[in-house]
């Protein structure tokens, strides 16, 4: 295939042949420099496709988030695929106004509210089998885990802004002294059966559903007080673990 460059080079050669036949020898050098000056390749900046709409900024955090009590929560996540048995996982969650620690089988998560912008969050995954600590920055959390900001973390994975789509019902339920209000959801909503405490920003239970099955998060126990050591930076608790950014963890073989 003939490119602009090949065509240009052929023209160059043809022009030079013609010029050489007319030119005294001493003229060649100046012709060279003139040609070099005019033959600098021209780069054309292409017209590109229009940009897509960028991601939305992190959601606003309710004012109550600054006043939540330090608690230790036991919770269960039940995942029921369309075809297959339900899988059940237990979690121990430690929550303060600016940190959330989640202990799961084989690993721990520590999320820290951003001190400059309280809508934002970063996290560390402590991977005990691999003896590694993997840093998740705000955009890593958003694009890999769907965590849009601190609002999603402080509410333990429940998206507070979806309450707008629900209707507050009369029914309430107590778990270890904390009262949860039932919210009814519209038919066909992907989020169902929400039990919510507005003052403590705690979700007692919620179910999400999509075409692959359902997931139900439910709190089984709430205790006042926390084990503060789990809220320490991960590398100070596990100084022998190797530290990675998420991208380098993915690079790691």
């Amino acid at each position, binding site marked *: 295939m003939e490119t602009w460059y090949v065509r240009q080079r052929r023209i160059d050669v043809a022009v030079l042949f013609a010029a050489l036949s007319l030119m005294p020898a001493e003229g060649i050098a100046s012709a060279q420099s003139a040609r070099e000056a005019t033959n600098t390749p021209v780069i054309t900046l292409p017209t590109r496709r229009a940009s897509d709409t960028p991601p939305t900024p992190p959601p606003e955090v309710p004012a109550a988030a600054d006043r939540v009590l330090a608690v230790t929560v036991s919770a269960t996540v039940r995942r029921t695929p369309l075809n297959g048995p339900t899988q059940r996982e237990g979690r121990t969650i430690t929550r303060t106004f600016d940190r959330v620690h989640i202990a799961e089988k084989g690993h721990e998560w520590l999320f820290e509210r951003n001190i400059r912008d309280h809508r934002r969050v970063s996290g560390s995954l402590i991977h005990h089998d691999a003896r590694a600590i993997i840093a998740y920055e*705000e955009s890593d959390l958003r694009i890999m885990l*769907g965590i849009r900001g601190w609002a999603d973390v402080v509410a333990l994975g429940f998206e507070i802004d979806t309450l707008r789509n629900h209707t507050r019902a009369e029914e309430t339920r107590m778990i270890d002294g904390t009262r949860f209000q039932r919210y009814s959801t519209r038919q066909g909503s992907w989020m169902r059966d929400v039990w919510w405490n507005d003052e403590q920003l705690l979700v007692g239970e919620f179910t999400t559903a999509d075409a692959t099955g359902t997931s139900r998060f439910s709190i089984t126990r709430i205790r006042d007080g926390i084990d503060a050591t789990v809220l320490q930076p991960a590398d100070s608790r596990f100084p022998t673990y190797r530290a990675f950014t998420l991208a380098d963890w993915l690079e790691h073989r």
Partner: protein
Amino acid sequence: MRVRGWKGAILTAVLIASGGAATVARGGFGDRDQDARYTGRRARNVIFFIGDGMGVSTVTAARVFSVGVDGQLVMDQFPHTALSRTYASDSITPDSAPTMSAMMTGVNTNQSVIGFGESTEANDFNNDGDGDAQWTLLELAKRRGMRVGAVSTATITHATPAATYAHINQRNNENDIALQALPTDGTFNNRLGRGVDILMGGGRRFFVPNSVMDEEGVRGARTDSRDLRSEFQGAGYRYVWNTAGFSSLTPASLPVLGLFESSHMEYEFDRPTDLGGEPSLKDMTVKAIQLLEGASRRGSEGYFLHVEAGRIDHAHHAGNAYRAMTDTQELDEAIGAAAQMVDLRDTLIIVSADHSHVFNIAGYPLRPLQELPYAVRSHEPGYENAAAAGHGILDLVWDIDQSTGHVFAAPDRNGVPYTVLGYHNGPGYRAASRVDPRTDVFRGFGGVVPTGPSHPAYFQEAAVPLGSETHAGEDVTIYAIGPGADLVDGTVKNTHIFQVMKRALGIH
């Protein structure tokens, strides 16, 4: 006789005019690597772009995505190209450490090793020492009095930029790599003279103690309690961390340390969400050239600048072609800006990749409706939107029945449509039974269920289930323009790039 390049045309004429039967050496590039008699025009400056993980399929897909299948990226317009073999000394398919080391020093090395030769193994696991540090082109340029800079959207201590200024047997020791660039540290790389003039990218965490929250509210990662931000300033550096500081930089600001993110910088698509504001790769490239050009007095030695689009690789590892496309497009924007700013008669620009990825352009996808040279008789719904899906590259494979003129989604052997782009392995594995990508509820980036394969959250399908998609071992392309670019030709080992840059600058 065969000569290359716009300059080659002149050379042809001169040779004919002199009546000589001289032949411009071509042969193997191994020959030219040994040939110190290169008499081409010297370059005053060299700009070396790397698209991390930007294999041939990535460039092709990004071309279709950005400018259409018959469009021209900026790098496509470069007159000289070669194929580059990327293997490491100990591996068929490499990581970025040995490949960038090879391109920067002319010496191949082993996986995870930066700036040493092939007898150096990762972590010195044989306890036999690392041997001699190889000279990098940036160090050689610095020794000659040139200005030097490294710019990346990855951490500035990441394997690729680090291979311009550091020597270490484990790429992951980024806290230590940062110290090698700090002129007042005991482990400073003395070959850097008074230091690298421009260091701009991500990786602030490796400059901030782990007890301290940085300017964007993220904890540092240094375990030695040292705050290198202030130590670099103590060594004469101007330190900036956001777009405001970035915008204020002038040639008088040099040397400059710009750390715009705690970890890697944002993907280009996600950049508008950043807290402090981040320059784009194009912004950083333009600024770096302005500073280096401004600081290099007329007639004095020129500059060497390395620019890396570090996150094409990361998007591929995550199995998300969308961000690999948008970051490759941004790299091409940066290359275009550079090519327009500099004088291509005295500045050599080289573009290449450190390795490829297992990223495929599959099937026989029909071009979008608006691009076809003929009218179709009928089509399945959705085909009319293919143009908006990155000129069809982020879409299903559409096919046409050549007897009826009907366009349909090409099926797999079970009758299920499939996408143009895919990966051999990675997180996009869908298990045994595939479903139509248009109704696929496989959670992609952010746990979002994408609305089809052109959605930014879509994970392209993968054949082998891996947590992270992998690099690939095929050759990558070298693109070159400017003085010395005619040495880029044939099929070469990536070490040849070092020889080309060195030869063009007249460094012996």
